[in-house]
């Protein structure tokens, strides 16, 4: 027997999450059908998102708020793939799941205002879906770490750790090879197995202690990953028992705003058919969730190099990749070549993200063809000279410089104009 209130507590994480968002406002680069809505539009969108998050937390107009939050958040996320982050994707998914769950029936204003019947128990699968989602994130992050560079060569840890030698006490250790291996292996084992320990009642407190240690350590060592550790720390609380959450909620109850459902409240008043419909949706959802991270298997070539099937797969902090790309626009009629100043069009972050990701390079190439055509260049051909260094290895030519990218189309297929990965130093 689990309580519907479990999910709500952990929305608190989203509120802090919202404080971090403003960096979004500054990075628009919409080549997809989703476009930024301009200054005022974006601010309204974020205001709507904040309101929705607040309503979800309070449990007021819950379902409407969930839909609103899911739509606004996902919309913003889709504007620019520069800003793709695994935990944004995670939040999108969770908010989608919450639309279908009755998390407004226990410790919620919807109950206080008699908009919903109080319920104090939900079918186990409802909490299970959230747990499964959190579990999938960890497990796939673990699987992603099972590769030669991570396990056998401790890359990219070997690169990242010496940059942290300023840290108190542990600083000097950062140059040690064995420390890099320890971090790599501990990270992989943690991701793979933590969920199982969280699920088991007896190991749960110890496992949660590990969650705290692990994520606080990552927050300390890699501040650039932002709120991700905190999101996971709070999300993992969903594994705790209903009694634990009830104790927590009881302390909040003193505000008098919320009413906790009485124990003799009826069980969830779902019709069997509606229940089945829900289960089908959530079943399909998880089926896709399990398949999507494995789609990289359909592509030939190195995953890290080509990044085909890389996103939406819980590959977190896995590689050190830097690139540098020059674009040349050629006019076949006159033979003239125009070298592009990328920063005329892109923010430094966008340029950086683009320089290692083929689909972004292609999008930008198409944009350039369009732009130069408007400026009077006839049939512009776009070529890229791009060098990429992966996991501290020497940089290599990334894109075939003889291919006219203006004539290559975006697709889900393998891009043949991305040169194969050469591993040798």
């Amino acid at each position, binding site marked *: 027997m689990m309580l519907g209130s479990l999910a709500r507590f952990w929305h608190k994480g989203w509120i802090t999450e919202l404080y971090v968002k403003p960096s979004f406002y500054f990075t628009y680069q919409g080549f997809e059908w989703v476009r930024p809505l301009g200054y005022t539009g974006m601010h309204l969108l974020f205001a709507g998102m904040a309101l929705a998050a607040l309503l979800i937390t309070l449990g007021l107009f819950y379902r409407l708020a969930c839909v609103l939050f899911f739509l606004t958040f996902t919309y913003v996320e889709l504007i620019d793939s520069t800003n793709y982050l695994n935990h944004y994707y995670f939040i999108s998914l969770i908010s989608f799941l919450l639309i279908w769950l009755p998390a407004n029936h226990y410790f919620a204003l919807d109950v206080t205002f008699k908009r919903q019947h109080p319920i104090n128990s939900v079918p186990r699968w409802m909490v299970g879906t959230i747990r499964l989602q959190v579990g999938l994130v960890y497990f796939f992050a673990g699987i992603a770490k099972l590769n030669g560079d991570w396990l056998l060569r*401790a890359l990219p840890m070997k*690169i*990242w750790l*010496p*940059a*942290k*030698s*300023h840290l108190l006490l542990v600083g*000097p250790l*950062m*140059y*040690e*090879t*064995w420390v*890099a*291996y*320890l971090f790599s*292996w*501990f990270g992989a*084992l943690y991701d793979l*197995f933590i969920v*199982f320990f969280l699920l*088991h009642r*007896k*190991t749960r407190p110890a496992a949660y202690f590990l969650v705290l240690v692990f994520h606080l350590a990552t927050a300390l060592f890699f*501040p*650039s990953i932002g709120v991700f550790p905190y999101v996971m720390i709070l999300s993992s609380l969903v594994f705790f028992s209903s009694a634990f959450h009830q104790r927590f909620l009881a302390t909040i109850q003193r505000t008098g705003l919320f009413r906790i459902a009485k124990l003799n409240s009826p069980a969830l008043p779902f019709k069997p058919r509606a229940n089945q419909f829900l289960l089908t949706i959530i079943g399909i959802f998880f089926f896709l969730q399990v398949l999507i991270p494995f789609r990289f298997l359909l592509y030939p070539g190195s995953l890290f190099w080509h990044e085909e099937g890389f996103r939406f797969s819980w590959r977190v902090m896995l590689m*050190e*990749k*830097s*690139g*540098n790309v*020059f674009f040349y626009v050629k*006019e076949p009629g*006159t033979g*003239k*070549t*125009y*070298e*592009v*100043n990328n*920063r005329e069009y892109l923010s*430094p*972050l966008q340029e*950086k993200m683009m320089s290692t990701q083929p689909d972004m390079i292609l999008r930008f190439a198409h944009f350039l063809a369009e732009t130069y055509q408007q400026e009077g*260049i006839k049939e512009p051909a776009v070529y890229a000279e791009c*060098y*990429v*260094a*992966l*996991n*501290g290895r*020497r*940089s290599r030519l990334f894109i075939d410089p003889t291919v006219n990218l203006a004539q290559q189309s975006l697709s889900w297929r393998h891009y043949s104009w991305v040169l194969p990965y050469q591993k040798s*130093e």
Partner: protein
Amino acid sequence: MNLSGKKTWLGLIAAVMLFVIACSEGDKTEAVPDNGFDKTAMLTNYADNLIIPAYAGMEQKLAALESAVNTFLATPTTETQQALKPIFKEAYLQFQRISVYQLGPAETLLLNNFLNTFPADAALIENNISNNTYNLEVNAATKQQGFPALDYLLFSDQALQKLDQPTGPNRKKYVQDILARMKALVNTVHANWNNTYRAQFIANTRADVGSPIGFLVNQFAYELDQLKGPRIGWPYGKQSGGTLFPEKSEAYYGGFSGSLAVENLTSLKKAYTGNESGKGISDYLIALKKEQLNTDVLRQFDLTIDKLKAIPDPLAASFTSHKDLVDAAYREVQNLLTLMKTDVASATGVRITYQDSDGD
């Protein structure tokens, strides 16, 4: 899962951990013992032997320039103009030695932007002179001051003639105001380094965005980007389908853009090696076991400097008469930039995040 199953799991994990530790210990015996790298000593070297002396040098050269300019303005003739030019060139060369260190107080004041945003905007400058009102302190005024403005005011074809016109006194005052502002900016940065920033700089051994090490690696890439773009590529017509803009080159009127480019890159190499003191970013790379990369970077520096030196000064003329030499140098600058922006940045775990700015 029953209890014994769980114990098995724990046992397995413990075994794996021990195995890993054993493995990596084994690895260590093969590798060169690594005692870390003294980042504080490196930063101290940069502060005391490179950056602060460069600002002191800039102050001296500007003082010398000021007195030479005053002599010239008192009696503007072809002779005094010719006598002024080498002193102006000396000061401009010294600027190339501080250019790469745009971090800390220099970054706050936008020192490079105010000292060397080229080409200068002649129309705005003429406007300022005829109106005799201007504010050089706003960010929008970067193209109306600094070395490029002096270059235009002192050495353009009609410089002497214009000093003779009724607006002559205004013009002289404008030159002196520009110089005073340049001196004030450099003095402020220099004093800041001496007073408080030096201590902050050497104490911060992080490598993240905004840290000295992060800044240095970023500035190496940024300077190379400037060399490739505003200093050579843009006036050479790289972005404009071959249409030349020689007047956009650095020190166009003084006619020594080539020397400035060579000095810029030579200073950059000096910054990269920490003046070959054993305490530079190059040595940090060696400590990170990237000897080969470091060797390649140094070789690429030397090659590129040679190719730049091969182009006769001024670049503006060579853009037409020595295209092959310009192309060759441009190619090598680009290769060096790629090494810096991908290989070196990747090896040091530094993110290239520099922001855009017009010209230098």
